[in-house]
């Protein structure tokens, strides 16, 4: 039953991810990336991470992609010729070769690996009884309070930095 959800979502994620890097028009690339984000959000729901799934749609598909589309339209970026029509095969061959090697290595590592990590106490039943969002919120404001506060500082620095860079 879970495979019926996982299969299509994984297929959509992979297909849209490939179209992000092969399409010529940057607007289409951005829209494909939105598709990837939605598929991943569905996978997070399947993994019982409801809070992360919703944040994924709001932050990535909402905020970050709007920023991307805004910049693409602002800069009026032209169509880039696709890499295979550019007579720069060395780069293409080197890139795809290296990545194939990386992927093979990862596949071997994942295939030969058995999980024996220490299991935590947040079992599926507990998460369903208390609620995913409540648990994430409680952890954020207890065990992870200092990283949480540092995150707000990072965002403040990013706001100031973006304004300084854009004003020049």
């Amino acid at each position, binding site marked *: 039953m*879970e*495979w019926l959800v996982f299969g299509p979502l994984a297929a959509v*994620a*992979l297909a849209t*991810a490939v179209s*992000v*890097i092969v399409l010529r028009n*940057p607007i289409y*690339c951005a829209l494909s*990336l939105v598709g*990837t*984000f939605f598929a991943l959000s569905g*996978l*997070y729901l*399947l*993994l*019982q*991470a409801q809070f*992360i799934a919703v944040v*994924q749609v709001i*932050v*990535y598909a909402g905020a970050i992609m709007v*920023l*991307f589309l805004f*910049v*693409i339209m*602002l*800069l009026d*970026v032209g169509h*880039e010729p696709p890499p295979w029509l550019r007579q720069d095969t060395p780069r*293409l061959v080197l*890139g*795809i070769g*290296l*990545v194939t090697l*990386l992927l093979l290595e*990862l*596949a071997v590592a*994942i*295939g030969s*690996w058995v*999980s024996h990590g*220490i*299991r*935590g*106490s*947040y*079992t599926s039943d507990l998460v369903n009884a208390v609620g995913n969002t409540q648990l*994430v919120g409680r*952890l*954020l404001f207890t065990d992870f309070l200092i990283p949480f506060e540092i*995150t707000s500082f*990072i*965002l403040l620095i*990013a706001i100031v*930095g*973006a304004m300084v*860079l*854009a004003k*020049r």
Partner: protein
Amino acid sequence: MTGTVPLNAYLILSAALFAIGVIGVLIRRNALIIFMAIELMLNAVNLSFVAFSRFLASMDGQIIVFFVMAVAAAEVALGLAIIIALYRNKESVDVDEINLLRG
């Protein structure tokens, strides 16, 4: 093909998405699309984190994904500001033409 999806399926999907992101960074020349490929890699890693969090019955993975998203938002804001600044100087976002630091 019944029952629950194993952890390895999620890890393989995550590895594939990460590899697609790496290919995108290596073969494209438009800085904006390179940036999108970087976002793709971040999302692939997030998927691994959430999958581990589920299968090891731990909440830490989801918390870390939350922080990754916050840092990614900051990174996008700064990166796009840098791209706009580059476009003002060079009238282009082609990374092959960006060589200001070449000695």
